């Protein structure tokens, strides 16, 4: 039942996104295919984390960590790169669009999407989950398990949205975004080392499994963080390249004007 629900909701989200893209394309607007591909990838990650075989074995701690990486790190990164908010703003109109803009400009969202709050929301949740008895409690309660997964995904999205800055939440400079990424990464690295050193979380099975989980978290997290840094720097590279080309064109024009004036002194 949960499998069907998961597949249906990720499928619906993907179809809704692609419908939006189709609407823009039919209107003659451009929308990069790479973004659509990112949405499909994000939906695939969420689905992979929540349907068998992964979900059947998530009482094993390393499997739980793999689930965590897919749901809380990779899927949010891909989703943030696919710019769904921008797509909705461009594909819809009227009252719906105005309502969305009110939410986007609201003080609460601005506060949530500030770098320190985003990092603290994610890191706080993870520290509470793995360093306290919360992890053991999620194994007993299905509802709590669901809430933890939801928090993992949403907090991951918050950090990915702030760092990648594709959608029009309050946009930050490259330096702020890189520092945010570094802080989030440092918090995760410290967490996985604490887990390894103190054999946490309680309820994570035998010691070898807990250590393996901590290692997967450490290395997997590093890979995702480096990938996000590459995305941020690639954006910067493209942006500065554009302004360099613009500058070069302007100096070319002024040089040509000067040459023209020097070449024809008698005119004017």
């Amino acid at each position, binding site marked *: 039942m949960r499998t069907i629900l998961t597949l249906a909701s990720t499928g619906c989200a993907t179809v809704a996104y692609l419908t939006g893209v189709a609407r823009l394309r039919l209107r003659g607007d451009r929308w990069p295919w790479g973004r659509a591909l990112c949405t499909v990838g994000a939906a695939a990650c969420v689905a992979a984390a929540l349907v068998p075989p992964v979900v059947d074995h998530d009482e094993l701690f390393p499997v739980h960590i793999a689930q965590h990486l897919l749901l809380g790190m990779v899927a949010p990164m891909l989703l943030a790169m696919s710019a769904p908010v921008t797509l909705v703003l461009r594909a819809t109109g009227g009252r719906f669009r105005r309502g969305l803009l009110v939410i986007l400009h609201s003080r609460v969202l601005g506060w949530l999407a500030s770098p320190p709050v985003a990092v603290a929301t994610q890191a706080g949740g993870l520290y509470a989950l793995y360093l306290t008895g919360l992890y053991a409690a999620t194994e007993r309660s299905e509802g709590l398990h669901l809430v933890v997964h939801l928090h993992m995904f949403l907090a991951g999205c918050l950090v990915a949205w702030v760092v990648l800055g594709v959608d029009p939440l309050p946009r930050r400079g490259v330096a702020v975004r*890189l520092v945010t990424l570094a802080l989030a990464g440092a918090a995760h690295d410290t967490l996985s080392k604490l887990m390894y050193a103190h054999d946490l979380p309680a309820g994570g099975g035998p010691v070898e499994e807990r250590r393996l989980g901590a290692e997967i978290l450490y290395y997997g997290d590093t890979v995702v963080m*480096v990938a996000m*840094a*590459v995305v941020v*720097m*690639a954006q*910067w*590279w493209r942006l*500065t*390249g554009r302004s*360099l*080309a613009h500058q*070069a064109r302007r100096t070319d024009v002024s040089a040509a004007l000067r040459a023209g004036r020097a070449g024809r002194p008698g005119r004017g």
Partner: protein
Amino acid sequence: MVGLFLLADAMRRGELVPRCWWGALLLGTGAFQLYDGVVQHKLLRLHQIRYHVSLWPYDLAWDVVAAVLVALGALLLATGARASKRGSVTAARPREHAE
């Protein structure tokens, strides 16, 4: 990773001074190795180069290499900076951009 992007950007602007780049690379490498050898190996005793042997030849070689890297890096950086300042009339001119 961020450094590689910055390096590529300096190259595309035509502002890269290779001698400064090598100098900074060696200086950074040497400074980290010296810190690792002194603070982590000796003061904190976190990890060692080898175990169950007499350590001092290894430590000495480690720290001397680090010091040489630092000195070489600083030298390259200083001479590179001076050379680029002298030649700044040509160095400051950005390379033409292909459209």
